[in-house]
């Protein structure tokens, strides 16, 4: 097998792996963005829950649904906010697992690319000497 075909194959492999790496990095960035959004929503919902908790039983709670303010039952509002908080916590945990997975893949891709680079460089050096 001629060394130039080996070299070309290695370079193609290198390009493919680099593309994979940049896609992984984009996925990681998107993960961070979604995490940020969820964390903000979680904070807001916890504030609302605190406000609802210090209310008397007979206080009126309204929910904005589109352009309409609808009167809600305090217990129902409490339950809704709690459920939303649970949902956000579950999503955040799922994102955390995702992120770990992506970061592991990113690191192993980086290693593979590095090794490829070494091989390419040594082959090119060998060719230059010949």
């Amino acid at each position: 097998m001629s060394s130039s075909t080996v070299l070309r194959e290695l370079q193609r492999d290198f390009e493919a792996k680099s593309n994979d790496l940049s896609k992984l990095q984009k996925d990681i960035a998107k993960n961070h963005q979604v995490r940020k959004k969820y964390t903000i929503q979680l904070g807001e919902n916890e504030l609302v829950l605190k406000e609802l908790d210090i209310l008397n039983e007979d206080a009126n709670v309204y929910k904005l649904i589109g352009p309409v303010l609808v009167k809600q039952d305090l217990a129902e509002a409490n339950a809704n906010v709690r459920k939303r908080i649970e949902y956000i916590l579950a999503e955040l945990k799922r994102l955390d697992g995702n992120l770990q997975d992506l970061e592991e893949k990113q690191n192993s891709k980086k290693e593979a690319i590095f090794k490829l680079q070494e091989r390419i460089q040594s082959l090119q050096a060998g060719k230059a000497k010949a």
Partner: protein
Amino acid sequence: MAAAAGAGAAAEMEKMSVEQVKAVKEQADMEVNILQDSLNNIRTATSRLEVASSALEDLSLRPKGKKLLVPLTASLYVPGTLDDADKVLVDVGTGYFIEKTTAEGKDYCDRKINLLRSNFDQLVEVAAKKKSIADEAAVILQAKLKHLAPST
């Protein structure tokens, strides 16, 4: 404590190459900018809450049946009469509104203002630390660059 951390970071940066120090400085600068933006946002939110609080104060002084002008759009006002100035609707977030008395409403505003003020103070501390790291990096970068290219 912050000075010791700064000295430790400086010692680290002395050992790094010019490229790395530059990277550290740019990272720290970006973080300082983000923190400054957050501080500005908190200041805006705090001042809006203070306006709301003083508006409530004002509203509670007005008698029932007082004539007023109600804004329908930014340039259209219609005359109206003040009905019940004792109950107010407070926007607590995520689309929920709670009916409160004027006193409770003021209390809500005051609580939020205090929360924001304490967040602001915490952020100011963090921002100061980051700024000192950024400044250290800048100084070390200058020194290294001078060292690499001594002026004749």
